[in-house]
């Protein structure tokens, strides 16, 4: 009697597992672009060019990108988004004015009011390049700003290495850890913001404790 029940239970669990597996594969396999309007054109070489306008949404390799306008060039395997761009990906949520994504190389460029809101940090800048294959993000332009753990800082360039849980800030770095201010040519923020390593000309200003 118990063996029969066990067999039934095992069978049910197996079916549920198969269902979940198939459902997951289906979600992973989703690759599409939707919009209110799509214009299909072809280049001189015959490659498709698709312009999408209004409520544009692209699902591609576990990324969801939305915007006002998008242009997909099949020959180059490049998609460009313009206006109110928002991208949800494994590293967090990215918003910007414009975004260009090279599908083949998994390389992304975002420009204008770039803001990345990740679980452990937040970065603001004018420009971003992101190499998804090595999970390296480089923020540049008009003093990029980062909040990482208890650290806030500005720099000419901020490189975020997600795999290593660290950020490298270079060029006119200035910032604050709790109430301690610092300046340096380059700093590395390690261990999710618990540790800072400074290189080059560095200056630390500790807060004076008032009694």
């Amino acid at each position: 009697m118990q063996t029969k029940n066990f067999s039934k239970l095992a069978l049910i669990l197996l079916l549920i597992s198969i269902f979940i597996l198939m459902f997951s594969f289906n979600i992973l396999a989703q690759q599409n672009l939707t919009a209110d309007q799509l214009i299909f054109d072809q280049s001189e070489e015959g490659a498709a060019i698709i312009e999408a306008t209004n409520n544009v949404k692209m699902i591609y390799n576990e990324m969801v990108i939305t915007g006002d306008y998008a242009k997909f060039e099949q020959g180059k395997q490049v998609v460009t988004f313009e206006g109110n761009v928002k991208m949800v990906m494994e590293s967090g949520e990215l918003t910007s004015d414009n975004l260009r994504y090279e599908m083949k190389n998994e390389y992304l460029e975002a420009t204008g009011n770039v803001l990345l809101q990740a679980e452990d940090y937040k970065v603001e800048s004018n420009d971003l390049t992101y190499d998804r294959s090595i999970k390296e993000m480089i923020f540049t332009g008009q003093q990029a700003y980062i909040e990482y753990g208890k650290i806030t800082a500005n720099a000419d360039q901020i490189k975020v290495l997600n795999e290593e849980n660290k950020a490298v800030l270079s060029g006119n770095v200035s910032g604050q850890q709790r109430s301690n201010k610092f300046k340096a040519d380059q700093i590395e923020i390690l261990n999710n913001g618990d540790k800072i390593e400074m290189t080059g000309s560095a200056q630390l200003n500790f807060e004076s404790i008032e009694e």
Partner: protein
Amino acid sequence: MYFKDKKKIFLATILILIVVGGIAFSIYHEMNREEDIPQDNTNSTQEKEYLTNIDLELYNNDKTIMWNLDSGKLVREDEGNIYNMDSPSFEAYENEEILYTGHGNNAIYNNSEETISLSGNIEIDKNKLLLQTERIIWNQKDDIITGEKGVKLTSPELIITSEEFTAPVSLNRIEFKGSENSRAKVEWR
């Protein structure tokens, strides 16, 4: 008294049968003649046959693109204002070069409105592209082709689906439109 004579009765019966038979034959013959009238009207039959042998040629406004429309059965209605075609197939040419070919279940050409509408399982082949829809209308006044219901464009790399499309007669640039419930969609193959 008179009919008591058996021979005379027999003769009278034969006569009556002959008369009744004659009348019946006359009626039968008249009915057959009436049935034969449409069949004998060879003019209309010849007109339909004659129309099926015509290739309908339609041009865009600047006469650069020509549609050659053919059909298995073509019926002329409304004094030649409307042509109703079954199983139409068409070829589009630009400067004698073929642009695309297509077919559907039915086509209606309205001469006064300058429109041709095709319906039912429409498939258009353009190079490596296949455009499918349930209905298309070519308005010759503005040379715009619109398609609706089950619109699908298949290329070797992509599939586009939408509720409707509009395009110039050349079909070089196709605009797909969706709705709030069903947006136009591109899927990578």
